[in-house]
């Protein structure tokens, strides 16, 4: 009974990680996620697929890190994945706000240049 339960758990782990990996690939394929930002997701997706298929691999990994309880190693991996992806998000957001600021400023300057070039009378701003 216990063996069957472990078997079912492994099966759902495999299904879940394959679905995760598949969805990431699908998002990139449909251009909804850029390759550059999919790298971290893809690598961790692969890691989870590998460890759900190769259970003793997870135990080996846990042993190498001195973690007594193998599933805890999985949580550790998950946390690392989330941390890295969130840091990447913060970097991307910072870069976007930086370029957003430059674009807004350039737009204000161009509007003024255009207004002068066309010699339009006082046009109220929106």
């Amino acid at each position: 009974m216990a063996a069957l339960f472990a078997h079912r758990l492994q099966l759902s782990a495999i299904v879940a990680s394959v679905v995760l990996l598949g969805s990431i690939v699908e998002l990139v394929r449909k251009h909804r996620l850029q390759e550059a930002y999919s790298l971290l997701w893809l690598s961790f997706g692969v890691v989870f697929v590998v460890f759900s298929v190769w259970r003793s691999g997870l135990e080996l990994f846990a042993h190498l890190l001195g973690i007594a309880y193998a599933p805890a190693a999985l949580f550790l991996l998950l946390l690392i994945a989330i941390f890295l992806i969130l840091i990447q998000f913060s970097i991307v957001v910072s870069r976007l706000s930086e370029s957003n600021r430059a674009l807004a400023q350039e737009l204000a300057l161009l509007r003024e240049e255009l207004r002068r070039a066309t010699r339009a009378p006082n046009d109220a701003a929106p």
Partner: protein
Amino acid sequence: MSEQHVRIAVIIPAFNEAASIAETIADAASLALDQELVVVNDGSRDATSSIARATGRATVLDLPVNLGIGGAVQTGFRYAARAGHDIVVQFDGDGQHVAAEIERLIAPIRAQQADVVIGSRFVERGSSPGAFRSTRSRRLGIRLLALANWLLAGRWVRDSTSGFRAYNREAVAFLADRYPADYPEPEALVLLGRNGFRLVEVPVVMRERQGGRSSIAGLRSAHYMIKVLLAMLMTALRPAVRR
């Protein structure tokens, strides 16, 4: 720089200042200098832009979104850097700054004794009735910023949050690309100090705030201090990019 041909840009950042912008423009336009007033409308939702335009005495730059004071002032720097003004004056649109003090502010730049001049409420100037009064905690905060500025950039500026400033051409070109974003005044001083710009502080009279509240009042001030000190420290940790 010959006295006759000094072209000055007065940058007036304005966010929802419809009530006071016309008066600010009239005040700044009254100077007997060759000044271009540049109102940077920081995505106001009121009539700030149209009122400023209707005066016919100011160039109005309309930002499509609200960038905050740093982004607005930087827009003015970019404008002045391209238009080739000799001196840029930063002048708040909320009625705190007095245009009559601009001559005093730009004097050290005209005399080529400074690259950046900060109009200070603290530097002694006789027993001026306009002397700045403030709460104890705010004074403490400003002292702390001055100390941080001295430790990080080796410059002693007492009123490091003052937004009444003048810059020469070189400083404007420098800041057009690098002006800090959120609460820029103290951070900009570290940046300028570490990059070898000469900072001079001159005493000026400022009015009591007309309407609105200081962007650094109330419960937000602790958050402000932490954020500004962090930004100053980070600026100091970056290598100098000039000189």
